[in-house]
């Protein structure tokens, strides 16, 4: 009760003290984070999504329009784990004000809050484009989305306290929906458990970990290094007699190597959407997972 009164007073003082707050400007590095910000922020946020599903988020230019978006950003919402290392720090340095510097409320890196896979004790660039902090592609595990949604709601309500109640109820609604969906998906995908796949890049670690699937081979000889003929031959030898469900590629990845392997082995190439907008039907987070599961099971 005491808490309640305090809160009431606080809510009032906040309303009185802050000037009318415009929409919270969210700078989302990738479509999946833009989609999540839309779920939790609703009409109270204005979202700029820095990259499209057709782009590899590792390699993006710090282009002028992104500087403009960064200049007005109240919240920078990205994967982190140095996925955006090639362009995000530059944008923040050049255009970010103190609200969105590292260690501030306006700096939310999703991978900081989930259990990371593929963490490397020792990393050297001869191992390719590696992320010693762990695999940054954290969004394809619904359990991670759930955690990150909470973190996002917390940041939004700290930035825009006037609309605290809205973010809370959006989060509650999303979490309930997500819990039901996750449960359904676990049931839907039981047949995939233990199946093996070939991947182009280790972009699917979280998805496969969630589904209990295994990677038997990677088309890239090293992360970020395009497939070579010698490496593909080695992959071919490895998968030849194994039972492999599919060869997974993302929309921004070159499908030639996957097709070559498929022609040799008759393992189907499956292009998963990878992120929101990655195929025509994956228009939001729910449909991203639905499409991913449908395509995986269809393989």
């Amino acid at each position: 009760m005491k808490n309640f009164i305090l809160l009431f007073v606080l809510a009032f003082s906040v309303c009185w003290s802050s000037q009318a707050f415009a929409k919270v400007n969210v700078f989302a590095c990738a479509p999946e984070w833009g989609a999540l910000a839309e779920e939790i922020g609703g009409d109270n946020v204005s979202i700029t999504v820095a990259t499209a599903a057709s782009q590899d988020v590792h390699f993006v230019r710090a282009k002028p329009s992104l500087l403009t978006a960064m200049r007005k950003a109240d919240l920078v919402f990205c994967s982190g784990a140095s996925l955006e290392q090639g362009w995000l720090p530059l944008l923040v340095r050049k255009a970010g004000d103190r609200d969105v510097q590292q260690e501030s409320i306006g700096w939310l890196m999703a991978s900081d809050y989930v259990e990371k896979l593929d963490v490397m004790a020792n990393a050297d660039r001869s191992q390719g484009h590696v992320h010693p902090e762990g695999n940054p592609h954290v969004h394809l595990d619904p359990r991670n989305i759930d955690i990150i949604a909470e973190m996002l709601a917390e940041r939004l309500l700290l930035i825009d306290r006037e609309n605290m109640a809205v973010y809370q109820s959006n989060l509650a609604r999303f979490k309930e929906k997500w819990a039901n969906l996750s449960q359904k998906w676990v049931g839907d995908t039981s047949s995939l458990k233990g199946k093996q796949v070939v991947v182009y890049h280790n972009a699917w670690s979280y998805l496969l970990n969630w589904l209990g699937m295994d990677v038997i081979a990677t088309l890239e000889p090293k992360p970020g290094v395009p497939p070579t003929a010698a490496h593909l031959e080695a992959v071919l030898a490895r998968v030849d007699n194994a039972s492999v469900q599919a060869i997974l590629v993302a929309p921004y990845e070159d499908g030639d190597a996957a097709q070559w392997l498929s022609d040799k082995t008759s393992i189907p190439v499956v292009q998963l959407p990878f992120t929101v907008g990655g195929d025509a039907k994956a228009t939001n987070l729910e449909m991203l997972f639905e499409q991913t599961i449908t395509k995986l099971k269809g393989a």
Partner: protein
Amino acid sequence: MSKKLLLAAVSVAALNVSPAFAASDEELKLLRAEIAKMQATYEAKINELEGKLEAIETRQSTANTMQANTVAVTSVQPSARPATAQRPINNSSFNPEIGVILQGQYQSFSNDSGEFAGFAIGEEGERGEEGLGIDETELNFSASVDNLFRASSTVALHEHEGDLEVELEEAYVETLALPYGMQAKAGRFFSELGYLNSHHAHSDDFADRPLPNRAFLDSNYNDDGVQISMILPTDLYTEIGAGAFRGSDFPGGGAEGSDIGAWTAYGRVGGDIGNNTSWRIGASTLQANDVSREANEDTVTFEGDSDLYILDGRAVIAPTGNSAEQEIILQGEYFYRDENGTYEDTDFGTGVVDYDDAQSGWYAQTVYKFLPKWRVGARYAQLYAGDTPAGLAGSALDSEGHDPWSGTAMIDWTNSEFSRARLQYNHEELADGQNDNQIMLQYIMSIGAHGAHAF
């Protein structure tokens, strides 16, 4: 009770690490409490869910994946997670970040002379040395100083005529958290002038700088001074800025006393066309006053005022929407230099001759990435020497009616963002009949921390 204490501690911790968010202690504590309450409501639900999940998982368990799942699910358990704790600071495992750029090359020129007709060229603007050699080795140290400042220094080592030269290319501090899209920079740095000047040579798309940058900026203008810039709150990217400098770097020179020797100002706009094309255009000026500068290996002296105006444009197109796959870069700059003062060419014994004239130049280039690792490029550059005062006839400043030009073709291979090898062919005719066919083979490697390059 202990939970409250914990929350209080967490709030204090959050405040400590985040001075930017200086809301009152009390408010934050309350918010935290509210969040915790909110989370507690879900705790029950999540526990229930967890139970269900576990039940399902036990039914179809495979022992090893089970373990991984449990770890992840447990981390869902809501706790009063501090908003800004437990996060590694990216790319600062070394403080400061240290980066080294190594460059090496083989160059061959068919003509003995690389003189520019009608222009007096600084040391960095001259063509390089023939044969095998290492080009500049750059050592960069940079780091955030604290929450408000970042500092960077770049030392370039290179050999010039057998002597090892150490050049302090950049040594500056910049602000990190000025409001209204503003940023201030102080120290020595590559000024915002046109497109190429603010970029380090190792990020260029060709092995050498285009003719106008060599003639008018001695490849790079990096003077000591201050610069302030501001990104305007417009939907179209708009940036303006200005700087004040000592005036000791080419085209300035001989700066002494307390005067501001050179001023700069620039403005640029940019944006996207559709999803696949980005562009920027800009205008800038460098006004150097009371210059006393020596060029052409100290044989030509200019004294007076030197005003330079530059227009620049650049567009980057990703035909497939994925720039990692294919990319086209179009880029060009136009230079106009108006000088008022005196020239003297001691080699020709011209004496001090009054000079009031303008010279200009431009380049246009395109680079096409046709495969993820391969790019080809072409460039054309042209200079216009302008009229020669009678007193300078026959000297280095007499172009004899010839306007220097050069045509370039290049192909490069980029194994990763840290390594590149390049083959380039130039045909230059910098003076009448002085045809020079140049072959350049180079590598550029980067080790250690290496920040992103600007658009």
